[in-house]
């Protein structure tokens, strides 16, 4: 039904994730564990609930997650 991706993105930024989420501080505390679970191919969202929702709602934490995943994932691939 939603035909405009830019409108959908704008609504997403305004309304944030619908479900429960952790805060920035808790996200930072758990990010290393979350990334290692992801790199290992395990279900990080089951182990650390609420973190993915926070990454969806917080661009800064999301960028830092992407960087840590790229850095650690790159090392594991070597």
């Amino acid at each position: 039904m939603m035909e405009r991706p830019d409108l959908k993105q704008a609504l997403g930024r305004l309304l944030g994730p619908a479900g429960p989420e952790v805060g920035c501080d808790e996200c930072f505390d758990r990010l290393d564990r979350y990334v290692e679970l992801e790199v290992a191919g395990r279900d990080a969202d089951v182990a650390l609930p609420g973190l993915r929702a926070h990454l969806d709602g917080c661009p800064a934490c999301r960028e830092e997650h992407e960087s840590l995943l790229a850095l650690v994932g790159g090392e594991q691939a070597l």
Partner: protein
Amino acid sequence: MSALSATVGFVESSGPLSTLAPSPVLDPDSREWLRCLHAEGATREDAVARLHALLLRAARFEVARRRPTLPHLRGDELDDIANEAADDALMSVLRRLDDFRGASRFTTWVYKFALLEAAVKLRKRAWQGREVPLEPESWALLSGGGLGPDAEAEQSELLSSLQSAIGDVLTPHQRRVLVALALNGVPIDVLADRLGSTRGALYKTLHDARRKLRAHLDEHGLSPEEM
């Protein structure tokens, strides 16, 4: 203020703290890092130097990832930022060494400090000298234009209700924070710096504002997820 100290506060705790419980056994590399960093004399000095090198590598990794978005910065300026980030991250890691519980490898744990410091510094540098808009620069993104007639009628009601709620339901502080972060694209660390706040506190404000807007839409029978 270090970037780390800007990440204070929870929104909601949705998971058991047991997920942060220490591993029964640290991996050998992590155990060796801790042994050396808790030692004295040359052993510790050597470990701190190796730790700084590790943090600098991570900070440079972050700088390299963001370099395309910072064309106005010279290479030596970027390397200065990476070095400052590594220095600040080193202080944070040493201060919080006892917080490491072995939930990940030690190197993964320290990397996140360097990435955070570098990312925050680069966001602030990108906005240096720029005005931080706290009022809506444009409602164009929330216009229903360009949709088909049926979709436009349905969505225009939601968008109109949302725009009203931003003006009527939120506190002035919530409105400023929501508008700056979600509408105007101001990085949260930049806004925290300008308002003398922290990332965690601003995200809590944003979270509360979002909950109010969702509740308002719900009260009016409007669901963005169904659109």
